[in-house]
């Protein structure tokens, strides 16, 4: 193999990609999308906290005021929490500011209901509550509003109402509600991640999302860059450039150069993304950007994780891009290619079914065995590393196995590539592909 030829091909593949507008749009878009995904929910949550005008009709006679007081307290708690103060006040979850209007009971209840409905439709109030003894006996308080799908508000309202009703029932039973609340406090799981680098508090859900995120990011880039190899090979074949190229480059040089160049373009893009992530996930930055409240335990994206991610990208790309190159060479157009590419995607889909079992138990026999199979190693080892660092021998073992597989695959696919790239017309059958491998 002539290294200058490989280098020249790789350079062309790399530069044409890195110089294209699409590359930079995608490179910048992902961090923006990530930021949007982080910030949007809190924006939406803030919107949901907008004030809520509520009319309360109380048949029982004593609960209306308590509900109003409970809601006020909840709103104060929410403000304090937003200001970085202590957590839930009195066990009441944060709550939007609610303007409560106590409506006196009228003799004609149906007329009153109709009037309240009109006020809702007229936009005077957002909703009205009807507290009745009959309803309470069945543990029900009516809630009437134009939209009853604002489940965030409803769940908070329901929480406050439950507490108010419970307090009132406790009082009736002669018990001190403050004392009861004191004694029936919930306990939380404090999740601590144990690793070689030392134990550290980390939110369980955040760790789960990081593993999930890294898995799908890797899936996406391996797939996208593999497809780029497929398209590149097809382009050269269908435009007949390859005929000219083969005069000065051996097929193996062309294949290896292509894989190196496109792989390097992928590494460049990932490098930018991961550097952004590392920078943004540093606690100081998170706090400064006010993305996370102080003291929140977010998973850190550290250098070892990034290194493993990049290695696994290279291995995954090595396997799948090589297969894609063979498919591109063996077929004549993208439609034909997609039929074969479907078989390749299976190897990327299988790991998806293993996400949940592996996250739950990253050391199970299933997790260890599947992550050591070269075709699954890139995605599954990434998942395991993100959840809990596996033993070093497993990581290195799987890397060596996968790298060996990549070399073997390149050797096999180069044969298909060599013959396929000059074959036009009929799409070869699997049997013919096998013959190419044997006789090339």
């Amino acid at each position, binding site marked *: 193999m002539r290294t200058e030829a490989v280098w020249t*091909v790789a350079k062309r593949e790399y530069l044409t990609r890195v110089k294209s507008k699409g590359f930079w749009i995608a490179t910048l878009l992902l961090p923006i999308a990530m930021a949007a995904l982080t910030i949007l929910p809190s924006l939406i949550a803030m919107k949901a906290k907008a004030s809520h005008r509520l009319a309360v009709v109380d048949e029982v006679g004593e609960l209306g005021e308590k509900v109003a007081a409970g809601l006020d307290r909840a709103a104060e708690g929410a403000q304090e929490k937003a200001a970085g103060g202590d957590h839930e006040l009195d066990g009441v979850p944060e709550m939007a500011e609610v303007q409560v209007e106590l409506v006196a009971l009228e003799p004609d209840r149906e007329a009153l209901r109709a009037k309240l409905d009109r006020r809702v439709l007229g936009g005077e109030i957002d909703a009205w509550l009807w507290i009745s003894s009959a309803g309470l006996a069945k543990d029900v308080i009516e809630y009437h509003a134009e939209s009853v799908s604002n489940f965030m508000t409803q769940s908070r309202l329901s929480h406050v109402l439950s507490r108010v009703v419970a307090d009132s029932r406790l009082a009736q039973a002669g018990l001190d509600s403050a004392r009861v609340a004191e004694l029936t406090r919930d306990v939380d799981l404090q999740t601590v991640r144990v690793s070689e680098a030392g134990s550290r508090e980390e939110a369980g859900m955040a760790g789960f999302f990081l593993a999930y995120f890294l898995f799908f990011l890797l899936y996406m880039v391996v797939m996208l860059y593999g497809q780029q190899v497929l398209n590149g090979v097809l382009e050269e074949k269908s435009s007949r450039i390859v005929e000219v190229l*083969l005069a000065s480059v051996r097929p193996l040089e062309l294949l290896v150069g292509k894989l190196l160049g496109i792989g390097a373009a992928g590494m460049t893009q990932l490098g930018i993304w991961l550097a952004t992530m590392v920078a943004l996930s540093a606690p100081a930055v998170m706090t400064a950007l006010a993305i996370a409240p102080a003291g929140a335990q977010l998973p850190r994206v550290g250098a070892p994780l990034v290194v493993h991610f990049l290695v696994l990208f290279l291995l995954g790309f090595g396997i799948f891009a090589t297969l894609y190159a063979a498919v591109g060479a063996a077929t004549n157009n993208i439609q034909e290619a997609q039929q074969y590419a479907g078989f390749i995607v299976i190897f990327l889909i299988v790991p998806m079914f293993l996400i949940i079992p592996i996250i739950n138990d990253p050391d199970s026999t299933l997790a260890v065995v599947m992550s050591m199979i070269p075709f699954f190693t890139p995605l599954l080892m990434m998942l395991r590393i993100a959840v809990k660092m596996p033993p070093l021998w497993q990581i290195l073992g799987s890397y060596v196995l996968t790298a060996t597989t990549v070399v073997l695959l390149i050797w096999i696919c180069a044969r298909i590539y060599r013959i396929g790239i*000059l074959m036009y017309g009929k799409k070869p059958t699997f049997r013919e592909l096998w013959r190419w491998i044997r006789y090339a």
Partner: protein
Amino acid sequence: MIYNLELREVRKVYGDFVAVDDVSLAVPPGAVFGLLGQNGAGKTTSIRMIMDILAPDRGEVWMFGRRRESKDLRRVGYLPEERGLYRKMTVTDHLLFFAELHGLPRSLAQASIAGWLERVDLARWAKSRVEALSKGMQQKIQLVATILHDPDILILDEPFSGLDPIAQGLFKEMIADFRGRGKTILFSTHVLEQAEKLCDHISLIAHGRVVLSGELAALKRERGGNVFRLETRSAGSAFDGVPGVLQLLEQTAGLRVVLEPGADPAAVLRELVRRAPVTGFRSEEPDLETLFLQAVRDAN
């Protein structure tokens, strides 16, 4: 004599089909060598074996007086029959890429590219994307990409197929230029008139076999002597069935008479005169088509 390019009993078989059947040919330095034959005769397969794109099942390819080594191919400029360009690259980037593939240093390549673009009148397109160029302009770029590294051997597979007249003229000019500088040119074509004007050596291939090969002028001399021009006012049909006549071709104010090998021209002439009035009868050099038809018939 050291040949710049040789095929030695090269054979290529696909399944049951013998595409190239023990083909040997030798191209001397400075020759314009025509590889002739109909479509499917085995020309492209032979050329691909020369370029090491296909491996022969048997036989050897020699270059510059020794068995071909892969570095020899960098001294070859190859223009395949099916040729394409990277549509999204600029003209200059595209040419640079091919120059570098042939091992040309970048600075040298840049100077060479500028010179060639000037010469083929495309200098102002240097920074344009290939897809913005017309078909004729793209053909010029393909030719420039083939010869940028100033190869010692130029191999052109059906160079004139699909060319617009301007590009054709340019190609012929290049061939003349290369010949003038003592380089070796091999091109394949199925258009015999074209080969006749450009080549000094030929190899005729039919069904994967060489049926005729050598220096064109010598072949014409050797194979001459059985082609005559008959001047007559009578129609060709008047001379049908004359013994010893292989072929009669109507031409302006006369006929072209090809004799069977070994036929006695004097005896044939006596019979022709007996059939109808004849005003002239003289020996003529055979054209390539005649040689081709004869050779194919002899081979069968």
